[in-house]
């Protein structure tokens, strides 16, 4: 049996009122009004880790904010061994459309671990939220006679999901009252409602808060980057799907016409053999050019990345595939013009020509970068619109608001006529 977790996770103290300076009094008031009828409702989030990855990052903000507006929110993590995580990693890849050798042993391991964790589910919670495939099976603990609402929050794109794995998980998903996806194109044809909530960034955390200009310049010059010359930046792990070599190729096309420097920033690749390989390829491609800076930073370099984003002239996200590019949102929030590949969620984040540019090819990326570099007014206009777009759609306060609406929706049921709260 897994060891039962008795104590709650100690989460950072996050107060909704702290966001008033960013989003305004009216927005905070709206959230409190929306939360008031839910006061005291208990909500349990279940996932597979307290640290690392976007899910844990979002929950570490969402749970304290839910508590601050009067809900009784808690976050629990399943206990599982290495084998279970290998299995769910294979599931994860297969759900993303990659070919994985899935054998009956996979399902057996998944079911055994799920059963051992059933006691983790709170019998008293009004809402239980399972996150991703790792915890979806916990719906086995659902008691039919009890009024308890179950939601499945899916953080991955199921568009090209392997039918064997999806067929196995689907029976669990459809025992929930509703599912939540980032985007419609990540969803499926399900028997339960599919709510859409796009991921958000926290404007007050280390990654996104305002920084003094002196600090930005100190950090940038510390890496040998010249803050007085144009800087192109891509922030992404060193992964072929992020196409760092394509970014270098685009930079070289731009350099034929305009002076600029390129900065490629990614997390440390020590635990990822393929990441190390890609990083080596990128370093080799950049070696002959002193204006290409390849920075492999530790995972907690939030402030450094914040400074680099603020120093950038143009931010690039030349991914080959992308669920939802949080680094795109971060750069847009900082008022930067972003040139993104026309793939996945980036197509929803960037309205090409309005708050950034979408491009399909390396030459297209280079062309848009040149356009921005040669027109300061355009860069400012795109940057302003980008910040406004994030302000209205992708901040954590908006995310909290959407979550509260989702809870109301599950409680009241699907209706076409307006629901008066």
């Amino acid at each position: 049996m897994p060891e039962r977790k008795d104590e709650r996770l100690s989460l950072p103290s996050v107060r909704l009122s702290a966001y008033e300076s960013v989003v305004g009094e009216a927005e905070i008031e709206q959230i409190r009004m929306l939360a008031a009828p839910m006061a005291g409702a208990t909500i349990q989030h279940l996932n597979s880790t307290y640290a690392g990855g976007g899910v844990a990052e979002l929950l570490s903000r969402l749970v304290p904010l839910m508590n601050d507006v009067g809900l009784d929110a808690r976050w629990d993590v399943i206990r599982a061994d290495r084998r279970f995580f290998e299995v769910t990693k294979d599931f994860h890849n297969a759900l993303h459309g990659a070919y994985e050798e899935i054998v009956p042993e996979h399902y057996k391991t998944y079911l055994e671990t799920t059963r051992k964790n059933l006691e983790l589910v709170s019998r008293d919670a009004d809402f239980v939220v399972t996150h991703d495939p790792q915890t979806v099976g916990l719906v086995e603990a659902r008691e039919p006679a009890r009024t308890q609402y179950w939601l499945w929050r899916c953080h991955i794109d199921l568009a090209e999901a392997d039918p064997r794995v999806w067929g196995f998980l689907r029976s669990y998903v459809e025992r929930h009252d509703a599912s939540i996806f980032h985007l419609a194109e990540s969803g499926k044809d399900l028997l339960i409602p599919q709510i859409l909530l796009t991921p958000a960034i926290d404007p007050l955390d280390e990654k996104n808060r305002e920084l003094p200009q002196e600090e930005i310049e100190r950090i940038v010059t510390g890496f040998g980057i010249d803050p007085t010359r144009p800087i192109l930046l891509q922030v992404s792990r060193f992964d072929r799907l992020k196409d760092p070599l394509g970014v270098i190729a685009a930079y070289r096309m731009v350099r034929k016409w305009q002076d600029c420097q390129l900065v490629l920033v990614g997390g440390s690749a020590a635990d990822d053999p393929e990441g190390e390989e890609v990083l080596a390829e990128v370093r080799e491609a950049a070696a002959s050019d002193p204006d290409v800076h390849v920075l492999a930073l530790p995972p907690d370099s939030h402030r450094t990345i914040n400074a680099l984003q603020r120093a950038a002239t143009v931010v690039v996200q030349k991914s080959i595939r992308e669920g939802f590019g949080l680094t795109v949102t971060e750069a847009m929030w900082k008022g930067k013009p972003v040139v993104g590949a026309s793939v996945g969620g980036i197509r929803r984040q960037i309205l090409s020509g309005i708050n950034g540019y979408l491009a399909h090819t390396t030459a297209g990326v280079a062309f848009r970068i040149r356009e921005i570099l040669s027109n300061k007014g355009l860069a400012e206009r795109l940057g302003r619109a980008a910040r406004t777009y994030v302000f209205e759609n992708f901040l954590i306060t908006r995310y909290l608001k959407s979550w509260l609406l989702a809870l109301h929706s599950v409680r009241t049921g699907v209706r076409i006529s307006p629901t008066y709260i």
Partner: protein
Amino acid sequence: MAKKPFRFEFSLSLTRYTGYAADNLRALLRGLERVPGGSIYHHLHHALFRRHFAIGAFANDFAVWCWKELHEEVLGERLTIIDPLEFSTIRAARNRLIEEVDRHLGSVEFIQHVPHERQFFFQESQTFVLPTGKEVYELPEFAAEVRKAPPDVIFHHFVVAVLRVGPGENDFSVWIEEQCKKPDLAQKLRELSPYAVDLFTLQNRIADLVLLHA
């Protein structure tokens, strides 16, 4: 002074995916015939709300998709000029959309298909209405309240009110005419189209007009 106050409310919407997607014009037509009414409402009205800082020529999602993804510019234009405010029911709007797409299908030589990520994903809205707690009796304070209201308030009382109070009508005009006895001002507000400007400009125009005629 009005006998009954104007009570400001706001509406918030939760978006859901209906499970219907279209990768070509025939599939779009099938979807228009079958999706829940909330989906027609969402793609007609919320397109306006989401883009209130970036007004484009193609105002609703169906028009944008036909123009941008299918490159059907004629159909895109025909769908664009559909004014959602002229319909008092979702069914009427749905029938008009079906009529336009069906007519166009009869004139095209081949049907273009698009890949998954360029498909039209039918979504729908569930709307929640909440009181803001603000109520006013006088036109000057009404104008001041309109000017500082969040866009959700203007969207609720002025844009989608048509589904509650009838074609060409909105909550502000109803109150101004019935309670403040200012039919001319009420009419001037009815003549403002939310499709002509973004919501921030619209709320200032409403406030300016009210102050001018108060």
